[in-house]
Each structure stands twice: as C-alpha cells, then as structure tokens.
C-alpha cells in the first residue's frame, strides 16, 4: 500500500523503511511496531530496522550478547575518554554520545577497523588451497590483516565469551567463523598474532547473512553503554575534574 501525504508538486520522500502515522500506527518494514516488534528486543529490532529482515531467535540472542560483551566502561579508551571530558564539562548527553560515536569511527579500533575486518573475512577464499595461496600473497606483500592483532595487549578476552554465546544459543560455527579461526591458527603459528573480536563479529555476521553495509549500520551503538557509563560518572563528579589540566602533547 502506498501512502502519499505530500501536496502535488512538493518534494517527495519515497521509503519502504517505515511510516509514523502519528496518533494511529507506526509501521516498520511492513510490520506494526507497537504490535509486532516489541518482543524483538532492542538489538534485534535495530537489526530489523537496518535490514528489513528478522533473524532466528538464537542468532538474535548471540548478537545481543556480542553487544553487551563489548560495552566497556573504561575511561582510558579513547572514545570513552571523550565521553568523560564531555560529562565533566556538563555537555548534554546527546552531544557527548555523538562525539564518542564519531571518534569510534577510527581505523585502529572501532568502526573503521570493523569495516576492513569484515572485508577480510568476506574476501577469504572458501577453498582451502586458494585460501592458503591468498594468505601467502597477503603475507608476501606484508599487508596488515584487520581482525588479527590488538593494540595495547595481544589477547582479546571477548573471543571465548563470543563462543560461549554461540554455544549457549545452541549454534555451531558457520563456514565464515571456521575460516576466521583457520586464519587465526595460521597467523599464530607464522606471525605470533592472535584473532581479535572484530574478526569474530564479522564472521558471525557473514554466517548470519548480514551484508557489509547492513553490518556497518547495525553495529554502531554497540559501544555506547561504555561511553555513557563514563559520561554519567564524570557528569556526577565535580565539574571539569576529569583529567583536569592534562595535555598529552
């Protein structure tokens, strides 16, 4: 059904994502938000909004736990530190969240790193022989493989947690996750580098049928509990006391 509320000749927004018929009904990708979507939970609903598809309950449960497992409220992490500064300066939380989110669009961690980690996982050949040849070529050209290695410390404590979520949900590793760990074994043996959570997230997303552009839009808020924990604490402490006077340069 098409609903057109613009007067003739006025600019039109054409969309299938949804419509808020205020005072009556809100429709999201053809479902009634207030009657068909409340059971999804926030993470699954976010994924539904991005993709227009619902996922198996077990898959949604895994994704939910991946999000929770990476909401780190440590004020040293760069994006969180920003939230700390902004809480301390009494900046409104909406602006603080925007800034922390923008900072997470980094290449060494966060969304930039996640984007290229997805590309690595999606680009890895399925055939074992071709995959080995691909890896040899990557290593010969001394390319960095995002999703492997980690700044500050080498080991990523979220790997086992992600696997536990998968197992608890009754799922087994799909082909992309199998390949991700194949590459982990190779890089550990040949370079002493371990897999990090960006590779796991990407591989699980690929196994769940989430495309790269969908993945990038869907994962955006996963770090936000960490930002807001730091923001809220510093907002409650004396004004401008967070790292007061500290300059790194």
């Amino acid at each position: 059904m098409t609903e057109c509320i613009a007067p003739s000749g006025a600019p039109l927004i054409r969309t299938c994502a949804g419509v808020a018929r205020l005072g009556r009904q809100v429709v999201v990708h053809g479902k009634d938000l207030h009657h068909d979507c409340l059971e999804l939970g926030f993470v699954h609903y976010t994924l539904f909004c991005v993709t227009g598809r619902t996922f198996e309950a077990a898959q949604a449960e895994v994704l939910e736990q991946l999000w929770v497992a990476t909401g780190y409220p440590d004020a040293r992490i760069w994006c969180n530190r920003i939230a700390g500064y902004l809480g301390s300066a009494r900046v409104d939380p909406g602006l603080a969240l925007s800034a922390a989110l923008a900072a997470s669009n980094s290449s060494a961690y966060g969304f930039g790193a996640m984007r290229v980690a997805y590309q690595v996982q999606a680009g890895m050949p399925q055939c074992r022989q071709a995959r080995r040849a691909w890896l040899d070529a990557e290593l010969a050209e001394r390319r960095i493989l995002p999703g492997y290695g980690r700044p500050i410390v080498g080991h990523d404590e979220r790997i086992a947690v992600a696997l536990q979520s998968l197992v608890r949900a009754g799922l087994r590793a799909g082909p992309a996750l199998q390949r991700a760990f194949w590459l982990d074994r190779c890089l550990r043996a040949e370079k002493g580098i371990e897999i990090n959570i960006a590779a796991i997230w990407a591989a699980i997303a690929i196994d769940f049928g989430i495309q790269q552009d969908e993945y990038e839009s869907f994962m955006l808020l996963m770090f936000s509990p960490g930002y807001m924990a730091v923001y809220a604490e510093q907002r409650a402490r004396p004004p401008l006391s967070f790292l007061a006077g500290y300059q790194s340069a």
Partner: protein
Amino acid sequence: MTQAWLEQLKAELARPELFDEGVEAARNACVAGASIAAAAITAAAYYDSPLVGIGSLRACMSRLAAVPCELAGWRAALRPGPADHGCDPPFTPGFGFVSLAQAGAVLAACRRLAAVGSRGPASHCAFFAQHHAELTAVAGPLNPSGLAALVFVGAELDLESAERQYMCWKIETATAEAQKARRAGLAAFPFLSDRYVYEGTLPPERTLDLASLLEQAGIGSSDD
C-alpha cells in the same frame, strides 16, 4: 568589529598555554585514525559546555551587555549564580575552571587586547584588566570564554555572531591538534594505564575454557 580585532582575539585564544580539555578530547577523537570530522564533532560538543563553551560565553555576554564600565555594576553582574545544568555549585559564566597558569595566561591576553586601544573591543578588556583583583575576588579567574565575552561585548557583537565565531575558532584549534595526534599515532599517545585507579567493587576473575568452547562450537584445532 574589525577583522584585525577578530584575528587578534582568535590568536590569543589559540595560544598553546590555553589548550584545554576540549583540545585533548579532540586529540582522542583522531589519534586512532578517525577523520577530522570526529575531532570537529568532539570539539563542537565540548565547546557547547555551559562552563567553558558557548553556554558560558553567551551567559557572560548577557550579564555584561547593559552594564556600564563602573566597578559596582560589574561586581553585581559577575556575582556567582546557580548552575542551570544540574546541581553543581554556583558559578559565574566566563570565570573559573582554569588552572593558576591558565588564569595568568588569560589575564595577560586580556592586557594585550586592552593595550590595542581604549575604545570598542578594547574597552571592556581594559576595564577588567584595571579591576581584575576586585572582579576575580567576586567571580574567580577569567577564563577564555569570559575573555572572548569581554571583547565581543565591547565590540557590540550580537550573541549569535559571537557564539558562531567562538565555536569556529575553537574547532579550528582543536582539529589542528587532533591532526598532529593522528600523525603521531596511537603508539605515541599515552593510554594512562599507570594513572588509572578503579575504586569500585572487584569481583573474582573467572576464566572460560577456550579450547572446550572451540570444540563445542565445532571449530577444529588443526588445519586438517
């Protein structure tokens, strides 16, 4: 307000001795490789602060706008008032929240701006410099947003132009520093590991058996 005045105030506000936590926050935004858009967004958010940003600038300008250069009037106008952003102690917009060193740097900048002339933008700086001891006793030390407010009020700049000017200057300075941090890279940027004290409850550490989980998930341990 002449371009020369704007340039001088901009240069004063961009001095490294006045770099504040907004500059440092912007460095954090870019140090791991994000676009300067992240630094600009961070700086824009920081300098929206009611304490040291455009909130403070606007409030300070509003307080001084109709006050003649006469000490009693300024003392009354700069009396601390309740913070309308929460339950923080009363403060005077444009004052406080600076270190001793920064307070000295702001006062020195105020004096340099006052020395430019006795009329227009210089007039409020000159008046503040002359009475800084009495006014500091009432309001605390002048901060950069207060310095800008003095110049803008003296120049009769409207609030919207003033906040736009101040915000743009601050973003420019912060993004330049963010770019430097990004060039230097994460390895050169302190993670502050040895300056972090967690004071909350610490539950016992629990470990997961990775090998067992790999097996349960059907992930082999060899290349076979």
